[in-house]
């Protein structure tokens, strides 16, 4: 247990020591999105009845920031320690693969939630938010963060150089998050793209998360919960399998 706790603490301390880069900067980026999109679209779009576009946008931005930062934390920590060779310090001790997985994932979720809370607090100046079903907010934040953190572990282990990790982030994670209904409801899309969106698991994370704020969503929160939970279980199993085999970590 001490091994797990120490690894978790080390991972949290790692991002906390560079908090401007890992927490403050993503909050700032999300605020810029909010300022630009709400300024341009506030008067033109109302996605849900009685919900302003700015209010609609905030949960999406919060979730997007959480997901991207959860991914960034586990993936960058692993690739950095692999490239510098300091990964040996966590491979030599008697830390089980489960403790390894939990520590990296929970620390990444912690960073995601810290950034998410930061974005939420900062955006409270701009709009009035409702919190209709807070439990759904917490559930989707944890599961979404957990999924992207697991993906970060997979990408960090798989990538041999920063270039490969950047490709994973820019060609998989970014399109999935941007095309998941952060800025719009998928009902505003043509039927084909609506169908495509239903294959994007991040759509369900954001839709379920948004339900927690407004009590309205594109699909039922229970459906989103089932899909997101299934994704989390599958990805966790895959990550645990990789760690157990020592894939790319133990020759």
């Amino acid at each position, binding site marked *: 247990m001490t091994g797990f706790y120490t690894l978790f603490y080390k991972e949290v301390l790692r991002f906390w020591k560079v908090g401007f880069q890992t927490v403050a900067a993503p909050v700032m980026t999300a605020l810029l999105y909010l300022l630009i999109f709400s300024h341009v679209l506030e008067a033109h779009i109302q996605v849900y009845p009685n919900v302003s576009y700015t209010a609609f946008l905030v949960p999406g931005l919060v979730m997007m920031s959480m997901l991207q930062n959860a991914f960034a934390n586990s993936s960058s920590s692993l690739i950095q320690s692999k490239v510098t060779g300091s990964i040996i310090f966590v491979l030599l*001790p008697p830390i089980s693969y489960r403790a390894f997985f939990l520590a990296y994932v929970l620390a990444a979720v912690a960073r995601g939630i810290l950034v998410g809370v930061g974005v939420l607090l900062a955006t409270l100046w701009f709009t009035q938010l409702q919190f209709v079903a807070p439990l759904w907010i917490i559930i989707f934040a944890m599961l979404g963060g957990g999924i992207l953190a697991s993906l970060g572990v997979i990408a960090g282990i798989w990538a041999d150089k920063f270039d490969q990790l950047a490709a994973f982030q820019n060609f998989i994670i970014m399109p999935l998050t941007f095309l998941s209904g952060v800025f719009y409801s998928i009902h505003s899309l043509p039927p084909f793209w609506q169908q495509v969106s239903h294959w994007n698991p991040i759509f369900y994370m954001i839709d379920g998360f948004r339900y927690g704020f407004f009590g309205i969503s594109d699909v039922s929160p229970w459906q989103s919960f089932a899909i997101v939970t299934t994704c989390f279980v599958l990805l966790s199993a895959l990550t645990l399998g990789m760690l157990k085999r020592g894939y790319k970590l133990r020759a």
Partner: protein
Amino acid sequence: MTSAILVQQVAKRFGAVRALAGIDLEVRQGEFFGLLGPNGAGKTTLISALAGLVRLDSGHIEVMGCDVVADYRNARRQLGVVPQELVFDPFFSVRETLRIQCGYFGIRQNRESDAWIDEILANLDLTSKANANMRSLSGGMKRRVLVAQALVHRPPVIVLDEPTAGVDVELRQTLWQFIRRLNRDGHTVVLTTHYLEEAESLCNRIAMLKAGRVVALDTTVNLLRSFSTHALRLRPAPGALLPAALLSRAENKDGVWSIAFDHYEEIEPVLAELRAAGCSLDDLEIGKPDLEDVFVRVMQGKEGVAA
């Protein structure tokens, strides 16, 4: 008594390269054991297998009776490894690094663990750098921290993979003083190094590896005896000739004659013969057996020594 390290029929391939080709080795508790060999001989692969960083194709390894695969958690608790590469985590100070490493091994931070960290820092001359960030340290200092990291959990078996590569004399002396003390206190030490004089002065027993096989394994004293002898080196004055009785025993290299001997009593008869023949000398010295000689002979030859 349980072996500190037991290696049985260990084999490992990396693609077409056979890194370990069926190694058998036992390191007894309390030994200062040398693992020598040229680059690519398999030393680091063997250490990595010991530490669970490399998965074996066949064979098995135990550390203090714990199988490194089946009982890997206990095996790793018994082992402290100083890696060959100069690696560090740039986010933390020296003290944070050591406390974190302690925690990885299941040791909660308390007064006792902090006192041990302070002791390690003092013994490795790191006290003044305890709160410095790892990035700000010189190469030699970083090497000391690596040694400290391997010792934080007080492992009974310490493996040092070329710990003095590229470091100054002062660190070497400080380091060996501390490691010798740990060895005296009962810790088993396994050392790989390319500095053979270090191995000769520190190790009780030595294994030499070549192409993934153990080609020599014996006590340092026996290896020196088997492969190297004392030699009386003579440089005759210009025009002086070595007496015929000595010529049959002597080897000439660059004008210096070497006469091998096992015991110092054999020197006097040689000098007597030189005096009798009126052979005056420009220079005379006694060469002691050294490990470099042994190493070169073992690596060049096909013979093996095992004990």
